[in-house]
């Protein structure tokens, strides 16, 4: 019997701890496939964040470092500068990257640091139990915005990809989604492109992946994918935001 589909060797056999319906698993798979297909397992270093993906070092089957909250781009910088031949990626959520780590991501981007950032945006703090994130939508109910996010009180959601695309340093910035198969395939293309950008030495690459959090959004997995499509994409338009040839 011919094998038509199997687990990529870039993921370990460790069972994922993610909640049912969470799309982190899909995104892990896409990143792992990209590394596998590019044949760079033996020189890839992943940097895990603080947040739901904190245990990513148990899942990605390559050398890994676990960074402090928001600091993954700085850790990646140190790692890449020591061994420029390594392919270094960070995997960060929206609380980690867009809030506490806003300085680190901005300066890694503007330096054109030759690393790849996988930015998983699910508009909420998942690991800590569903608090308001910098990416939480106006009106969205979270455990720290129980009456819905009020922009008058706590401002507006931050569009990281558009913001970073204004800088001269980044070489590739794209926003994708994983709410259906078509978009998952598009996401894969962008993720692979981001790694190729680093391999070509072009500089900083970032893929923002819109992701569902059924547990903390209080929805079924199906509802959450629909909610992502209908509410997040209008706030966070998909597409390539910057590409340097």
């Amino acid at each position: 019997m011919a094998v038509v589909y199997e687990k990529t060797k870039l993921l370990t056999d460790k069972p994922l701890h993610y909640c049912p319906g969470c799309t982190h698993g899909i995104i892990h798979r896409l990143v792992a496939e990209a590394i596998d297909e590019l044949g760079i397992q033996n020189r890839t270093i992943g940097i895990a964040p603080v947040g739901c993906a904190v245990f990513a070092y148990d899942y990605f089957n390559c050398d890994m470092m676990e960074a402090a909250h928001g600091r993954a781009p700085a850790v990646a910088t140190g790692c890449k500068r020591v061994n420029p031949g390594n392919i270094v990626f960070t995997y960060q959520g929206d609380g980690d990257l867009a809030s506490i780590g806003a300085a680190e991501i901005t300066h890694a981007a503007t330096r054109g640091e030759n690393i790849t950032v996988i930015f998983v945006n699910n508009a909420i703090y998942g690991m800590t139990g569903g608090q308001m994130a910098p990416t939480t939508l106006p009106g969205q109910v979270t455990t720290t915005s129980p009456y819905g996010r009020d922009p008058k009180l706590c401002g507006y959601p931050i569009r990281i990809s558009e913001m970073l695309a204004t800088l001269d340093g980044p070489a590739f910035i794209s926003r994708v989604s994983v709410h259906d198969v078509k978009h998952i395939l598009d996401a894969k293309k962008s993720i692979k492109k981001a790694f190729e950008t680093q391999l070509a030495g072009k500089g900083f690459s970032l893929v923002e992946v819109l992701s569902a959090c059924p547990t903390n959004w209080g929805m079924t997995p199906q509802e959450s994918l629909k909610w992502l499509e209908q509410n997040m994409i209008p706030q966070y338009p998909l597409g390539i935001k910057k590409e340097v040839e």
Partner: protein
Amino acid sequence: MGQKMLMKGNEAIAEAAIQAGCRFFFGYPITPQNQIPEYMSKRLPKIEGGCFLQAESEVAAINMVYGAAGAGARVMTSSSSPGISLKQEGISYIVGAELPCVIVNMVRGGPGLGSIQPAQSDYFQSTRGGGHGDYRMLVLAPSSVQEAVELTQEAFDLADLYRNPVLVMGDGLIGQMMEPVEMPERKPRTDLPEKTWAATGWEPGCGRDRAIINSLYIDPAVLEKHVNHLYEKYAAMEANECRWQEEMTEDADYIIVAYGTTARIARSAMRKLREEGIRAGLIRPITLWPFPAAPIAAAAKHAKAILTVEMSMGQMVEDVRLAVEGAVPVHFFGRTGGIVPTVREIITQVETLAKGGH
């Protein structure tokens, strides 16, 4: 570079680090340590494989150190008190992940923004951990530019040996003054363990386990075991790395305990006191952690009193009191806020003790 040169402390520390094989430096400007990053920015790009990067913050700098150390490099950062406070999060993670690196603190007056003048008021922060969690760091306190060179170079070996950060703690004066120094090239110790744990790229069958640089141990039993392992290293440091200098303590009635710049001033005071016929001695801790409690306790057995002198409101004095366990009175004299004590002030303190006062 064997001949004697006149160098500023900060620049000498930077060159010493390079001679000890440091090729990566990540830092952020703050007075009075700016000559360290400035010197590194000039020298490191001219050395093969060298990299200087000015980080966006102290927080980023220490995390770049984490990444570079995790990749197996000899790496350093430097700062001064407020900046070192910002680095504490990263230092705690570096300890937890057992990464070697060297951190220089050119201490200035505090609290808060404080002043830019020399101080020793970061003693508690340096010797009690500083960041969150159960940990210790070797803290080396030079009292001359030459000693700063030697201790900085040794710091890299000690960091690699114990897989723990080493703090070189100078007061601002050590960084800012110029003194003649010899600058030897220093090859790493030959007994250092290979960095087989470093994240440099892995695949199945490559001859080592997959590297995971990490300080997260979600299972309490596993974390307790990890911290116990860290404390085995600290016990080894206490057994093997404690350093101090004693002068004229054998017959001393009054023992001054002081470190760094303060120890030099205390030495001058001690000599003058001897000329006056007052038998004074000096114990100068070189490692602030581990603290040289044993020699201080031994000297206290035949002394009438101890005077601890610091550029702070009295921090090390607590360790001196713990060391002597009430055997003799332990007095304190300190200036703070960036004020350096004078020889005269220290002499007066000891004279008062000799007259039965205080």
